[in-house]
Every structure is written in structure tokens, then in C-alpha cells.
């Protein structure tokens, strides 16, 4: 069985991270923004696990597991806020959130 070289995994991670970052900066729907952030976090997970396998130690895996748990908590908080915004404003578009602009 051939092993996937480290570089390929890192490049995939970088591509996913960039897609996520671009998504956060260009999309205007809050739900899509949350998905983009999740994508960034999972790109980090992939990078960490790749490095972890490369080093042959488990610390990267440990951090990746913590990231998964934290990402779940983050999604919960984020969706709760989307709900709160939707109740008050009836919209999940970030452009509608302009009360605080000076």
C-alpha cells in the first residue's frame, strides 16, 4: 500500500483553508459564513493530522480532537446567534446587520 506523501496532504489543507477564508470574506449569508469557518477548522485538522503522522507522535491528533470538540461548541454558539438575529431582524444576511455602523 503506498502512503500519501506529507506534501500532498499539506497542499490539500492549504487549499481547503484558503477556500474557507475566501468564503468568509466574500459570502454574505451568515450560515455560509459559519460553514466556511468550519471548513477552515477542518483544513487545520487535516494539516495537524498529516504532521502528526509524519512525526509519528500523537500530539497533533490530540489537538485535532480538541478542535473538533471546540468546533462543535462554536457551531452551537453561532447558530444560537443566527437564531437571535433572525428573530429580531427576520434575515440571515450579514449586510442587514448595519445598525452599529457609524
Amino acid at each position: 500500500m503506498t502512503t500519501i506523501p506529507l506534501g500532498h496532504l499539506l497542499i490539500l489543507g492549504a487549499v481547503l483553508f484558503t477556500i474557507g477564508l475566501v468564503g468568509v470574506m466574500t459570502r454574505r449569508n451568515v450560515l455560509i459564513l459559519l460553514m466556511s469557518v468550519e471548513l477552515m477548522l477542518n483544513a487545520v485538522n487535516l494539516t495537524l493530522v498529516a504532521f502528526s503522522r509524519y512525526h509519528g507522535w500523537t500530539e497533533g491528533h490530540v489537538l485535532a480532537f480538541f478542535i473538533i470538540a471546540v468546533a462543535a461548541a462554536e457551531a452551537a454558539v453561532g447558530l444560537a446567534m443566527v437564531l437571535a438575529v433572525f428573530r429580531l431582524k427576520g434575515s440571515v444576511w450579514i449586510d442587514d446587520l448595519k445598525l452599529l455602523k457609524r
Partner: protein
Amino acid sequence: MLHDLALTAPLLILLFAAMFTLVVDPFLKADESARRFWGWFGAAFAGLALVTAALLFKFGPFEMQTPAFAYHLSASRYSLFFVALISMCTLVTHLASPKYMVEQGVSYGEYYALINFAAFGMACMVSAESLISLFISLEIMSMAIYVLVAFKRTSLASVEAGMKYFIMGAVGSALLLYGMAFIYGLSGSTTYVEIARALIKPQANGDFWLGLAMLLTGAAFLFKVAAAPFHMWAPDAYEGAPTPITGFMSSAVKAAGFAALLKFLFAAMAGPAMGELHTALPKIIATVAVFSMTVGNLLALTQKNVKRVLAYSSVAHAGYLLLGCVAWIADPTLAGYQQPTGAVPFYLVGYALASLAAFAALAAVGKNGEELTGEAQLIGMGRRHPYAGAVLALAMISLAGVPPTLGFFGKLQLVRDVLGVEDSKYLPHVVILVLNSVVSAYYYLRVTVYIYMRPEGRMPREYVRETSLDWAMGLTAAGILFIGALPGRAMQLGQSAVESLRTGVSVAHLAYEQLPLGPSQALQVRPPVENPAAQGSTEGQPGDQAAARPVPAREPAAKDAPAGIK
């Protein structure tokens, strides 16, 4: 084990207070007196954590500078100093909250639990000794703060502020993690000690990858402390958040962010570990500092809402503090650190007290779901609410850095510290800092003018006294005046905190050398078989980026040593 628990006692006290509030609150009658009780309860436990941290600071066993919990947390004087500062901010925030939350109609027990969770996260953050514990504690803090900002869930401003802060904060966390992933890739470890040791070995293209990692983590840290150019969230979040929480964010979150940043730079990215970067890093930080203070001050000039003014002023203060950090890392060879003085911790104390006082005073005025934070709305505050008006004016004077107050001594110490670096190498930066202080005096004193010197007052007269809020304002104002009158002792404390960070790092390195086995090796699950297939195939492709990636392999020497740390 017991030793570890004793060292983290202040953290555990904060955590206990949070959990107790959360569990018991549903069983209490949902009336105002119960909510007021949680304010006092949280304040009492924050005070207990403060006292515990102070006792450990004074009498603590100093073998404790060696990291606890398998190299993930430590209790040095450095971390204890900041735990005490954070507990103090938590105490004042608890005291300032009940009246405001009742007036705004969002008084719930969870609010006080969340403040304690955030405080616990911050206390862990300043004690963190590894990337894993740093990340988790940062998230514990941030998650609680996101919710607290959006806590007035019937107010669109609050929810909107929370939403914006949350999205930007989540991106910040992702950047931090990506940087951490590269640091892990370069060093093969997540604890600061091991990272510092692993990075010393020169690696191919190491500077590039390390620079990338520092860029990502640095951006995330700058985001957390609200330094320009990562400050965009600050004005919105500060304005929309409940006023006591705004005070909490500008004091405790900033202190925790700076403490964690400095520890990270000092312990993990120290000296030789940074390679060529160690000469560039102070210059970069100094440039960011100047940018941040200038942007913050200029934008603050145009604001009409005091909360927004203070938000931009907090961006400016992040700049001053970053310039203070330069004095620490200007010569970052682990052996040859210049003697850092306690300017940054001392400045943080002054800044935290002043902004807590200002936001407590702002929380005191305003009724029935309305906040009176517009500058024009403050007209007549000095006569209608003499106590709150005086505290707000004092806080502004201290933030501006006018002599008898604490803010002046903080700035003085900071400037002396920075000028001491390599024959006043950073003199131009200091000149910009002083000019910035002059600019900032304009908008700080403008608030004072509105409080006292405008004849036509529209501020509502009726003012319901609240004991806890009076205490919050009194404690912070007394702190500003008392420490301002006798700054020597507080400076000494800051100094010994900073020195302990320095010795702590070397003690940790010594202790590490005496271990039969590195801590991460104890966590190892499978024997680390070198993977010739993976490495061979990577190296076999010329031009593949992976071949250039400077990832050190571990020496197999220590691998058959007995497992276990203690």
C-alpha cells in the same frame, strides 16, 4: 497530582463559581434579589481567587515554576500576577452588573456563570504552557465572551455586535490554529519547552515556515487584544455589548491576551528558536504598535458615543502596550534577554482599573432599557450623578495619562523601558507615542467637559443607588488614586512577575533536561516507526514542496526509555 491542584487553586475556584451558579440558579426563585445574589456570589469567589493567587504569589513554593499537568499549565509568579489581575477585573464586573442587567431587563443567572467561565478561560490562558492548553483556554474565554456580548437578546445592537464579534473571532481562532499546526509541524511538539528546544536546530527553509506560522498566530493574538489592523470588531462589539461586559472585555481580555502573547513569545519562540526572525520581530511589533496607536487615536477623535470612543482608545492602548512588549523581546536570545522591567504588567493594571471604572460609571446611568452613552447625553452628569460623574472623569484623566493618576506612571514606566533598549533605538516610536498621548488627551478631556462644564443638562435626575455598583466604582477609583499615589509597590510586583517568567523559562528547560523522557513521549501510543515509504516518496519528487519542508525527525535515542513523567 495534589501539588498540581494546589497550584491551580485560583483557576479551580473560578471554575467552581461558574458551575455552581449554573447548577443552582434554576432552583432559585426567578426574581431580582436572586440575580443580585449571583452578582455578590461571583464577586466573592473572584475575590477568593484573587486572594489565593496573591497568597501563592507571596508564599508559593517556587519549585512550582516547573510546569504542571504534564507540561500543559504552570503557576509561576508571572501567571499568578495575571490571574490576580483577571480575578480583580471579574470581581468589579460582577459588582457592576446587577443594576445594569435589571434595568435592561435581561437579568439572568447564566450571565454571572458566563463571566466566571470567561475568567476561568483567561486564567488558564495566562497559565498555559502548551499550544493545546493555550487554544482550549482561549476558546473557553472567547465562547463565553461571544455569548455575553450578545446577551441583551432583545436588543438588535447587542445581538448584531455578538454576531460580528463571533464571526471575526472564529476566523481569528482558525488563523491561530493554522499557525499552531505549522509550529507543530516544524517542532514536532506542542509544549512551549519542547518547541523552543526543537526549533533551535537550523532547518532548511525554516525561517520561511516559521515566519508564516508567526504571521498567522500573531494576527490572531493581535485580533484578541484589538490592535490595528485587526481592530475592526472592537467598536461594534464594545458599543453593542452590555456596558459591564464592555469593561470586562477591555480590561481582562486585553490583559489575558497580552500575557499569553508575551509568554508564547518568551517561552516557545524565544531567542535562537527564531533564527533570523529574532532581529526582525521587534521591528515588526514596533511598527504594528505605532500603527495601532495612531489609528486608534485618530478614529477616536471622530466618535460621538463614549463606548465607541473607549473602544478606539482601547485600540490605541493596545498599541502602547505592544511598544512595551518590544522592550521585552528586543534581544531575544534565551541567555541574553535584557532585564525586562515590569512596565507591561503595571500598565495593564492601570489600564484595566481605568477602563473598569469608566464602564462601571457608564453602567450606573441609564434606565429602563436605555443606555446614556452618547457624549451629549452625559451633559449634567457631574451634578445629577456626582459620584458616577466623578469616577468617569477620574477614569478619563487616568486613561489620558495626567500626572497624579495611575495612567501617568504606567506610561512613564513604559516609555523608560522602551528607551532603555539598545541606545534609544526606538526613540522615534516613543516620540510618536508621546504625540499620540497628546492627541488622546483631547477626546478624553472632551468627555470630562461634557460631564462638568456644559450648563444645559438633560440627564435624568432620579438615580437608584445600588450598593454593589457603588462598590465597583469605589474600588476602581480608589485603585487608580491609591496605586497612583504609591506606584512603587505595584511596579515591584510587576517586576517580580516578569522576572519569574524569565527564570521560569530556564527552570523549565533545566527540569526538562532532567526528565528521563519528554512529556509528549509519555503520551505516545504506538512506537514511532520511521516511515521510510512516506519520506522516501516525498524526497523522491524533486520540486515537490514537501521535500523542502523543514520537518525534523525525532531522534530515536530516547524512545526506549521508561514511560511516565512522575
